[in-house]
Protein backbone atom coordinates (compact mmCIF):
# COMPACT_ATOMS: atom_id res chain seq x y z
CA UNK A 1 0.00 0.00 0.00
CA UNK A 2 1.23 3.51 -0.71
CA UNK A 3 2.74 5.31 2.27
CA UNK A 4 0.78 8.48 1.77
CA UNK A 5 -2.45 6.78 2.81
CA UNK A 6 -3.11 7.71 6.44
CA UNK A 7 -3.23 4.82 8.88
CA UNK A 8 -6.85 5.37 9.89
CA UNK A 9 -7.96 5.11 6.27
CA UNK A 10 -6.01 1.90 5.86
CA UNK A 11 -7.57 0.51 9.03
CA UNK A 12 -11.03 1.53 7.84
CA UNK A 13 -10.65 -0.54 4.68
CA UNK A 14 -10.57 -3.68 6.80
CA UNK A 15 -14.01 -5.33 6.64
CA UNK A 16 -14.74 -5.78 10.37
CA UNK A 17 -13.60 -2.23 11.15
CA UNK A 18 -15.74 -0.72 8.42
CA UNK A 19 -18.65 -2.89 9.50
CA UNK A 20 -18.57 -1.36 12.97
CA UNK A 21 -17.94 2.15 11.63
CA UNK A 22 -20.86 1.96 9.21
CA UNK A 23 -23.10 0.45 11.84
CA UNK A 24 -22.39 3.33 14.19
CA UNK A 25 -23.07 6.12 11.71
CA UNK A 26 -25.93 4.62 9.72
CA UNK A 27 -28.72 5.52 12.20
CA UNK A 28 -27.51 9.14 12.23
CA UNK A 29 -27.45 9.28 8.45
CA UNK A 30 -31.00 7.98 8.04
CA UNK A 31 -32.26 10.22 10.85
CA UNK A 32 -30.74 13.25 9.13
CA UNK A 33 -32.23 12.16 5.82
CA UNK A 34 -35.71 11.80 7.32
CA UNK A 35 -35.64 15.09 9.22
CA UNK A 36 -34.28 17.11 6.29
CA UNK A 37 -36.61 15.29 3.92
CA UNK A 38 -39.70 16.14 5.92
CA UNK A 39 -38.60 19.76 6.27
CA UNK A 40 -37.91 19.99 2.53
CA UNK A 41 -41.24 18.42 1.64
CA UNK A 42 -43.12 20.76 3.93
CA UNK A 43 -41.29 23.72 2.42
CA UNK A 44 -41.92 22.51 -1.10
CA UNK A 45 -45.48 21.27 -0.86
CA UNK A 46 -46.98 23.67 1.64
CA UNK A 47 -44.89 26.82 2.04
CA UNK A 48 -43.76 27.53 -1.51
CA UNK A 49 -46.30 29.40 -3.62
CA UNK A 50 -47.70 28.01 -6.88
CA UNK A 51 -45.67 28.85 -9.95
CA UNK A 52 -47.20 31.59 -12.09
CA UNK A 53 -46.79 29.48 -15.24
CA UNK A 54 -47.26 25.89 -14.14
CA UNK A 55 -49.40 26.18 -11.05
CA UNK A 56 -48.85 23.40 -8.56
CA UNK A 57 -47.49 20.93 -11.09
CA UNK A 58 -43.96 22.31 -10.75
CA UNK A 59 -43.73 20.87 -7.23
CA UNK A 60 -42.42 17.66 -8.78
CA UNK A 61 -39.18 19.61 -9.07
CA UNK A 62 -38.47 19.09 -5.36
CA UNK A 63 -37.92 15.40 -5.89
CA UNK A 64 -37.05 15.29 -9.58
CA UNK A 65 -34.01 17.55 -9.51
CA UNK A 66 -32.37 16.13 -6.34
CA UNK A 67 -32.86 12.60 -7.71
CA UNK A 68 -31.33 13.62 -11.04
CA UNK A 69 -28.32 15.06 -9.25
CA UNK A 70 -28.05 11.91 -7.12
CA UNK A 71 -28.15 9.64 -10.19
CA UNK A 72 -25.01 11.38 -11.42
CA UNK A 73 -23.40 11.77 -7.99
CA UNK A 74 -23.74 8.07 -7.18
CA UNK A 75 -22.31 7.16 -10.56
CA UNK A 76 -19.29 9.33 -9.87
CA UNK A 77 -18.75 7.61 -6.50
CA UNK A 78 -19.20 4.24 -8.18
CA UNK A 79 -16.61 5.27 -10.75
CA UNK A 80 -14.06 6.36 -8.16
CA UNK A 81 -14.62 3.21 -6.09
CA UNK A 82 -14.34 1.09 -9.25
CA UNK A 83 -11.06 2.74 -10.15
CA UNK A 84 -9.64 2.13 -6.67
CA UNK A 85 -10.91 -1.46 -6.76
CA UNK A 86 -9.24 -2.20 -10.09
CA UNK A 87 -5.93 -0.46 -9.45
CA UNK A 88 -5.35 -1.40 -5.80
CA UNK A 89 -7.66 -4.41 -5.48
CA UNK A 90 -9.14 -3.21 -2.19
CA UNK A 91 -12.06 -5.40 -1.11
CA UNK A 92 -13.96 -2.51 0.45
CA UNK A 93 -13.76 -0.46 -2.75
CA UNK A 94 -15.22 -3.39 -4.70
CA UNK A 95 -18.08 -3.72 -2.25
CA UNK A 96 -18.81 0.02 -2.12
CA UNK A 97 -18.85 0.25 -5.91
CA UNK A 98 -21.28 -2.65 -6.31
CA UNK A 99 -23.47 -1.57 -3.40
CA UNK A 100 -23.84 1.88 -4.95
CA UNK A 101 -25.20 0.52 -8.22
CA UNK A 102 -28.73 -0.41 -7.09
CA UNK A 103 -29.08 2.86 -5.18
CA UNK A 104 -27.99 4.84 -8.22
CA UNK A 105 -30.35 2.84 -10.41
CA UNK A 106 -33.22 3.63 -8.02
CA UNK A 107 -32.52 7.36 -8.19
CA UNK A 108 -32.21 7.22 -11.99
CA UNK A 109 -35.51 5.37 -12.23
CA UNK A 110 -37.24 7.95 -10.02
CA UNK A 111 -35.73 10.74 -12.12
CA UNK A 112 -37.08 9.24 -15.34
CA UNK A 113 -40.57 8.56 -13.97
CA UNK A 114 -40.99 11.91 -12.19
CA UNK A 115 -39.57 13.68 -15.22
CA UNK A 116 -42.04 11.89 -17.44
CA UNK A 117 -44.94 12.85 -15.18
CA UNK A 118 -43.77 16.45 -15.10
CA UNK A 119 -43.19 16.55 -18.84
CA UNK A 120 -46.59 15.03 -19.57
CA UNK A 121 -48.13 18.28 -18.43
CA UNK A 122 -45.36 20.73 -19.30
CA UNK A 123 -44.58 19.55 -22.83
CA UNK A 124 -47.71 17.54 -23.51
CA UNK A 125 -45.74 14.33 -24.04
CA UNK A 126 -44.58 11.49 -21.79
CA UNK A 127 -41.24 11.16 -23.47
CA UNK A 128 -38.98 13.08 -25.81
CA UNK A 129 -35.56 12.24 -27.21
CA UNK A 130 -33.62 15.27 -26.10
CA UNK A 131 -30.04 14.97 -24.85
CA UNK A 132 -30.75 15.00 -21.12
CA UNK A 133 -33.51 12.40 -21.13
CA UNK A 134 -31.67 10.09 -23.50
CA UNK A 135 -28.50 10.34 -21.43
CA UNK A 136 -30.46 9.59 -18.26
CA UNK A 137 -31.99 6.53 -19.93
CA UNK A 138 -28.54 5.38 -21.04
CA UNK A 139 -27.38 5.91 -17.45
CA UNK A 140 -30.13 3.58 -16.24
CA UNK A 141 -29.01 0.93 -18.73
CA UNK A 142 -25.45 1.31 -17.51
CA UNK A 143 -26.48 0.82 -13.88
CA UNK A 144 -28.55 -2.24 -14.82
CA UNK A 145 -25.67 -3.59 -16.88
CA UNK A 146 -23.27 -3.22 -13.96
CA UNK A 147 -25.68 -4.97 -11.59
CA UNK A 148 -26.39 -7.78 -14.07
CA UNK A 149 -22.73 -8.31 -14.92
CA UNK A 150 -21.70 -8.41 -11.26
CA UNK A 151 -24.30 -11.07 -10.48
CA UNK A 152 -23.44 -13.30 -13.43
CA UNK A 153 -20.14 -14.40 -11.90
CA UNK A 154 -19.77 -17.25 -9.43
CA UNK A 155 -16.83 -15.56 -7.75
CA UNK A 156 -18.15 -12.40 -6.06
CA UNK A 157 -14.87 -10.51 -6.20
CA UNK A 158 -14.31 -11.29 -9.86
CA UNK A 159 -17.85 -10.18 -10.65
CA UNK A 160 -17.25 -6.94 -8.78
CA UNK A 161 -13.99 -6.21 -10.60
CA UNK A 162 -15.50 -6.98 -14.02
CA UNK A 163 -18.51 -4.81 -13.34
CA UNK A 164 -16.18 -2.08 -12.06
CA UNK A 165 -14.44 -2.08 -15.43
CA UNK A 166 -17.81 -1.75 -17.15
CA UNK A 167 -18.70 1.16 -14.87
CA UNK A 168 -15.52 2.97 -15.91
CA UNK A 169 -16.29 2.40 -19.60
CA UNK A 170 -19.73 3.82 -18.93
CA UNK A 171 -18.34 6.98 -17.36
CA UNK A 172 -16.66 7.78 -20.66
CA UNK A 173 -19.78 6.92 -22.61
CA UNK A 174 -22.36 9.13 -20.91
CA UNK A 175 -20.88 12.50 -21.98
CA UNK A 176 -20.40 11.06 -25.48
CA UNK A 177 -24.08 10.12 -25.64
CA UNK A 178 -25.16 13.55 -24.40
CA UNK A 179 -22.94 15.26 -26.96
CA UNK A 180 -24.13 13.13 -29.86
CA UNK A 181 -27.83 13.45 -29.01
CA UNK A 182 -27.44 17.22 -28.64
CA UNK A 183 -25.91 17.36 -32.10
CA UNK A 184 -28.66 15.14 -33.49
CA UNK A 185 -31.36 17.31 -32.00
CA UNK A 186 -29.92 20.50 -33.48
CA UNK A 187 -29.79 18.68 -36.82
CA UNK A 188 -33.49 17.99 -36.56
CA UNK A 189 -34.31 21.42 -35.11
CA UNK A 190 -35.48 19.73 -31.96
CA UNK A 191 -37.63 21.46 -29.40
CA UNK A 192 -35.68 23.58 -26.99
CA UNK A 193 -36.75 22.21 -23.66
CA UNK A 194 -36.04 24.10 -20.55
CA UNK A 195 -35.92 21.65 -17.71
CA UNK A 196 -36.81 24.27 -15.11
CA UNK A 197 -40.04 26.09 -15.90
CA UNK A 198 -39.51 29.48 -14.29
CA UNK A 199 -36.38 31.14 -15.64
CA UNK A 200 -35.30 32.35 -12.23
CA UNK A 201 -36.23 30.41 -9.14
CA UNK A 202 -37.74 32.24 -6.22
CA UNK A 203 -35.89 31.80 -2.89
CA UNK A 204 -38.96 30.16 -1.41
CA UNK A 205 -38.46 27.42 -3.98
CA UNK A 206 -34.70 27.15 -3.70
CA UNK A 207 -34.29 26.24 -0.07
CA UNK A 208 -36.60 23.18 -0.16
CA UNK A 209 -34.73 22.04 -3.27
CA UNK A 210 -31.34 22.38 -1.61
CA UNK A 211 -32.57 20.82 1.62
CA UNK A 212 -33.86 17.83 -0.29
CA UNK A 213 -30.50 17.59 -2.07
CA UNK A 214 -28.73 17.20 1.25
CA UNK A 215 -31.44 14.81 2.45
CA UNK A 216 -30.97 12.50 -0.54
CA UNK A 217 -27.21 12.51 -0.09
CA UNK A 218 -27.65 11.55 3.53
CA UNK A 219 -30.04 8.80 2.48
CA UNK A 220 -27.50 7.49 0.00
CA UNK A 221 -24.90 7.23 2.76
CA UNK A 222 -27.35 5.43 5.03
CA UNK A 223 -28.42 3.00 2.34
CA UNK A 224 -24.83 2.49 1.16
CA UNK A 225 -23.65 1.70 4.68
CA UNK A 226 -26.48 -0.81 5.10
CA UNK A 227 -25.82 -2.56 1.79
CA UNK A 228 -22.06 -2.56 2.31
CA UNK A 229 -22.43 -4.16 5.72
CA UNK A 230 -24.64 -6.90 4.30
CA UNK A 231 -22.31 -7.45 1.33
CA UNK A 232 -19.28 -7.65 3.63
CA UNK A 233 -21.05 -10.30 5.71
CA UNK A 234 -21.72 -12.30 2.55
CA UNK A 235 -18.18 -11.88 1.25
CA UNK A 236 -16.47 -12.81 4.52
CA UNK A 237 -18.98 -15.39 5.71
CA UNK A 238 -16.27 -17.91 6.53
CA UNK A 239 -14.39 -15.57 8.82
CA UNK A 240 -14.60 -15.53 12.60
CA UNK A 241 -15.82 -11.94 12.96
CA UNK A 242 -18.87 -12.76 10.83
CA UNK A 243 -19.61 -15.93 12.82
CA UNK A 244 -19.40 -13.89 15.99
CA UNK A 245 -21.98 -11.45 14.65
CA UNK A 246 -24.28 -14.30 13.60
CA UNK A 247 -24.12 -15.72 17.13
CA UNK A 248 -24.66 -12.35 18.78
CA UNK A 249 -27.66 -11.66 16.60
CA UNK A 250 -29.23 -14.99 17.57
CA UNK A 251 -28.82 -14.25 21.25
CA UNK A 252 -30.36 -10.77 20.92
Amino acid sequence: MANWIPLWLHKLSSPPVFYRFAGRWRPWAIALALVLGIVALYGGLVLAPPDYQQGDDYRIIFIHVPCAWMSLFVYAIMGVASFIALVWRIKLAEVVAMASAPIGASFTFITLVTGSLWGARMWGTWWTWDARLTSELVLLFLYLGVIALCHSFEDRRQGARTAAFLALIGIVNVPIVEFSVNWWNTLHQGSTIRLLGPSSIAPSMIWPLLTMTVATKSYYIASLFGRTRTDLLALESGKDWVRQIAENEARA
Partner: protein
Amino acid sequence: MAVLRRDLTLAWRQRGDMALPVLYALIVTSLFPFALGPEDALLRRIAGGVVLVTVLLAMLLAMDAMFRSDIEDGSLEQLMLAPQPLALMLGMKILAHWLATAVPLIVIAPLLAGMLHLPTPVMPVLLLALLLATPLLSLLGGVLVALTAGTRRSGMLLALMLLPLCVPVVIFAAGALAAAQEGLPWIAPIAWLGAALVLAVVLAPLACATALRIALDS
Protein backbone atom coordinates in the same frame (compact mmCIF):
# COMPACT_ATOMS: atom_id res chain seq x y z
CA MET B 1 -0.71 -12.53 -38.45
CA ALA B 2 -0.97 -16.25 -37.81
CA VAL B 3 -3.89 -15.57 -35.50
CA LEU B 4 -5.66 -13.72 -38.28
CA ARG B 5 -5.13 -16.51 -40.77
CA ARG B 6 -6.24 -19.16 -38.30
CA ASP B 7 -9.45 -17.38 -37.35
CA LEU B 8 -10.35 -16.68 -40.96
CA THR B 9 -9.75 -20.31 -41.90
CA LEU B 10 -11.94 -21.47 -39.04
CA ALA B 11 -14.66 -19.05 -40.07
CA TRP B 12 -14.47 -20.24 -43.66
CA ARG B 13 -14.83 -23.86 -42.57
CA GLN B 14 -18.10 -22.92 -40.94
CA ARG B 15 -19.29 -20.67 -43.72
CA GLY B 16 -22.82 -21.75 -43.02
CA ASP B 17 -22.55 -19.70 -39.87
CA MET B 18 -21.40 -16.70 -41.86
CA ALA B 19 -24.58 -16.86 -43.91
CA LEU B 20 -26.80 -16.56 -40.86
CA PRO B 21 -26.46 -12.80 -40.20
CA VAL B 22 -26.91 -12.13 -43.91
CA LEU B 23 -30.07 -14.21 -44.00
CA TYR B 24 -31.37 -12.47 -40.91
CA ALA B 25 -30.72 -9.04 -42.45
CA LEU B 26 -32.51 -10.03 -45.65
CA ILE B 27 -35.55 -11.31 -43.80
CA VAL B 28 -35.86 -8.29 -41.51
CA THR B 29 -35.43 -5.80 -44.31
CA SER B 30 -38.03 -7.50 -46.48
CA LEU B 31 -40.50 -7.53 -43.60
CA PHE B 32 -40.55 -3.76 -43.38
CA PRO B 33 -42.53 -3.09 -46.57
CA PHE B 34 -45.05 -5.71 -45.43
CA ALA B 35 -45.32 -4.09 -42.04
CA LEU B 36 -45.47 -0.47 -43.14
CA GLY B 37 -47.04 -0.71 -46.59
CA PRO B 38 -45.24 -0.44 -49.93
CA GLU B 39 -45.78 3.30 -50.34
CA ASP B 40 -42.63 4.56 -52.02
CA ALA B 41 -42.22 7.88 -50.25
CA LEU B 42 -42.32 6.28 -46.79
CA LEU B 43 -39.87 3.49 -47.64
CA ARG B 44 -37.51 5.96 -49.23
CA ARG B 45 -37.42 7.99 -46.00
CA ILE B 46 -36.71 5.10 -43.68
CA ALA B 47 -34.50 3.04 -45.99
CA GLY B 48 -31.15 4.31 -44.74
CA GLY B 49 -32.02 3.98 -41.07
CA VAL B 50 -33.59 0.54 -41.46
CA VAL B 51 -30.56 -0.89 -43.27
CA LEU B 52 -28.26 0.62 -40.64
CA VAL B 53 -30.18 -0.81 -37.68
CA THR B 54 -30.67 -4.18 -39.37
CA VAL B 55 -26.94 -4.56 -40.05
CA LEU B 56 -26.18 -3.56 -36.46
CA LEU B 57 -28.64 -6.08 -35.03
CA ALA B 58 -27.27 -8.81 -37.28
CA MET B 59 -23.79 -8.04 -35.96
CA LEU B 60 -25.06 -8.15 -32.40
CA LEU B 61 -26.36 -11.67 -33.02
CA ALA B 62 -22.97 -12.80 -34.22
CA MET B 63 -21.06 -10.91 -31.52
CA ASP B 64 -21.55 -13.49 -28.81
CA ALA B 65 -19.59 -16.06 -30.80
CA MET B 66 -16.50 -13.86 -30.99
CA PHE B 67 -14.37 -15.58 -28.40
CA ARG B 68 -16.72 -18.34 -27.36
CA SER B 69 -15.10 -21.30 -29.13
CA ASP B 70 -11.67 -20.18 -28.01
CA ILE B 71 -12.73 -19.93 -24.40
CA GLU B 72 -14.32 -23.35 -24.52
CA ASP B 73 -11.34 -25.18 -25.93
CA GLY B 74 -8.85 -23.27 -23.78
CA SER B 75 -6.91 -21.70 -26.62
CA LEU B 76 -7.73 -18.22 -25.34
CA GLU B 77 -5.95 -18.87 -22.07
CA GLN B 78 -2.97 -20.15 -24.03
CA LEU B 79 -3.04 -16.98 -26.06
CA MET B 80 -2.92 -14.98 -22.84
CA LEU B 81 0.26 -16.77 -21.83
CA ALA B 82 1.98 -16.26 -25.18
CA PRO B 83 4.93 -13.85 -25.46
CA GLN B 84 3.30 -11.66 -28.11
CA PRO B 85 1.27 -8.71 -26.83
CA LEU B 86 -2.25 -9.88 -26.02
CA ALA B 87 -3.80 -6.65 -27.29
CA LEU B 88 -2.36 -7.16 -30.75
CA MET B 89 -3.61 -10.73 -30.98
CA LEU B 90 -7.07 -9.78 -29.75
CA GLY B 91 -7.08 -6.99 -32.31
CA MET B 92 -6.41 -9.60 -34.99
CA LYS B 93 -9.23 -11.78 -33.67
CA ILE B 94 -11.63 -8.86 -33.76
CA LEU B 95 -10.50 -8.06 -37.31
CA ALA B 96 -11.12 -11.66 -38.37
CA HIS B 97 -14.56 -11.55 -36.79
CA TRP B 98 -15.36 -8.31 -38.57
CA LEU B 99 -14.20 -9.68 -41.91
CA ALA B 100 -16.31 -12.78 -41.50
CA THR B 101 -19.41 -11.09 -40.12
CA ALA B 102 -19.64 -7.49 -41.27
CA VAL B 103 -18.15 -7.63 -44.74
CA PRO B 104 -20.84 -9.99 -46.13
CA LEU B 105 -23.42 -7.63 -44.64
CA ILE B 106 -21.82 -4.59 -46.26
CA VAL B 107 -21.72 -6.47 -49.56
CA ILE B 108 -25.47 -7.10 -49.51
CA ALA B 109 -26.26 -3.65 -48.10
CA PRO B 110 -26.91 -2.20 -51.57
CA LEU B 111 -29.40 -5.01 -52.15
CA LEU B 112 -31.15 -4.27 -48.84
CA ALA B 113 -31.20 -0.56 -49.59
CA GLY B 114 -32.54 -1.22 -53.05
CA MET B 115 -35.38 -3.29 -51.61
CA LEU B 116 -36.43 -0.20 -49.69
CA HIS B 117 -35.93 2.17 -52.63
CA LEU B 118 -33.07 4.14 -51.16
CA PRO B 119 -32.21 6.93 -53.62
CA THR B 120 -29.08 5.96 -55.58
CA PRO B 121 -26.92 9.00 -54.72
CA VAL B 122 -27.23 8.08 -51.01
CA MET B 123 -25.89 4.56 -51.60
CA PRO B 124 -22.15 5.39 -51.44
CA VAL B 125 -22.72 7.33 -48.21
CA LEU B 126 -24.51 4.31 -46.78
CA LEU B 127 -21.61 2.04 -47.67
CA LEU B 128 -19.11 4.48 -46.20
CA ALA B 129 -21.14 4.84 -43.01
CA LEU B 130 -21.37 1.05 -42.65
CA LEU B 131 -17.67 0.68 -43.39
CA LEU B 132 -16.91 2.96 -40.45
CA ALA B 133 -19.70 1.97 -38.07
CA THR B 134 -19.38 -1.82 -38.26
CA PRO B 135 -15.72 -2.03 -37.21
CA LEU B 136 -16.48 0.42 -34.40
CA LEU B 137 -19.16 -1.98 -33.24
CA SER B 138 -16.87 -4.96 -33.54
CA LEU B 139 -14.20 -3.23 -31.48
CA LEU B 140 -16.57 -2.00 -28.77
CA GLY B 141 -18.40 -5.32 -28.78
CA GLY B 142 -15.09 -7.13 -28.44
CA VAL B 143 -14.35 -5.36 -25.17
CA LEU B 144 -17.77 -6.25 -23.80
CA VAL B 145 -17.57 -9.86 -24.98
CA ALA B 146 -14.25 -10.12 -23.17
CA LEU B 147 -15.88 -8.83 -19.99
CA THR B 148 -18.56 -11.51 -20.11
CA ALA B 149 -16.03 -14.19 -21.03
CA GLY B 150 -16.27 -15.94 -17.69
CA THR B 151 -20.06 -16.07 -17.58
CA ARG B 152 -22.48 -18.65 -18.93
CA ARG B 153 -25.26 -17.37 -21.19
CA SER B 154 -24.32 -13.80 -22.00
CA GLY B 155 -26.51 -12.92 -25.00
CA MET B 156 -29.06 -10.70 -23.27
CA LEU B 157 -26.48 -9.18 -20.97
CA LEU B 158 -24.27 -8.36 -23.93
CA ALA B 159 -27.14 -6.62 -25.72
CA LEU B 160 -27.95 -4.61 -22.58
CA MET B 161 -24.33 -3.51 -22.21
CA LEU B 162 -23.85 -2.79 -25.90
CA LEU B 163 -26.91 -0.57 -26.34
CA PRO B 164 -25.53 2.51 -24.55
CA LEU B 165 -22.33 2.26 -26.55
CA CYS B 166 -24.22 1.85 -29.84
CA VAL B 167 -26.26 5.02 -29.47
CA PRO B 168 -23.61 7.57 -30.54
CA VAL B 169 -22.47 5.36 -33.44
CA VAL B 170 -26.00 4.99 -34.78
CA ILE B 171 -26.71 8.69 -34.30
CA PHE B 172 -23.72 9.82 -36.32
CA ALA B 173 -24.17 7.20 -39.04
CA ALA B 174 -27.85 7.99 -39.37
CA GLY B 175 -27.08 11.70 -39.31
CA ALA B 176 -24.79 11.31 -42.29
CA LEU B 177 -27.44 9.34 -44.15
CA ALA B 178 -30.16 11.88 -43.39
CA ALA B 179 -27.95 14.74 -44.53
CA ALA B 180 -27.03 12.95 -47.75
CA GLN B 181 -30.67 12.24 -48.45
CA GLU B 182 -31.50 15.95 -48.09
CA GLY B 183 -28.60 16.88 -50.34
CA LEU B 184 -26.81 18.54 -47.41
CA PRO B 185 -23.10 18.11 -46.61
CA TRP B 186 -22.62 14.79 -44.83
CA ILE B 187 -18.88 14.83 -44.26
CA ALA B 188 -18.96 16.09 -40.63
CA PRO B 189 -20.63 13.08 -38.97
CA ILE B 190 -18.59 10.76 -41.18
CA ALA B 191 -15.45 12.52 -39.96
CA TRP B 192 -16.57 11.98 -36.36
CA LEU B 193 -17.09 8.28 -37.07
CA GLY B 194 -13.68 8.10 -38.69
CA ALA B 195 -12.01 9.77 -35.72
CA ALA B 196 -13.83 7.48 -33.31
CA LEU B 197 -12.75 4.47 -35.34
CA VAL B 198 -9.10 5.50 -35.23
CA LEU B 199 -9.35 5.97 -31.47
CA ALA B 200 -11.10 2.63 -31.07
CA VAL B 201 -8.53 0.77 -33.18
CA VAL B 202 -5.83 1.99 -30.82
CA LEU B 203 -7.65 1.72 -27.48
CA ALA B 204 -10.16 -1.11 -27.86
CA PRO B 205 -7.67 -4.01 -28.17
CA LEU B 206 -5.90 -2.75 -25.04
CA ALA B 207 -9.20 -2.45 -23.19
CA CYS B 208 -10.13 -5.89 -24.50
CA ALA B 209 -6.93 -7.41 -23.14
CA THR B 210 -7.48 -5.76 -19.75
CA ALA B 211 -11.11 -6.90 -19.69
CA LEU B 212 -10.10 -10.47 -20.52
CA ARG B 213 -7.50 -10.51 -17.75
CA ILE B 214 -10.02 -9.19 -15.24
CA ALA B 215 -12.77 -11.57 -16.29
CA LEU B 216 -10.73 -14.76 -16.58
CA ASP B 217 -8.22 -14.39 -13.77
CA SER B 218 -9.25 -16.70 -10.94
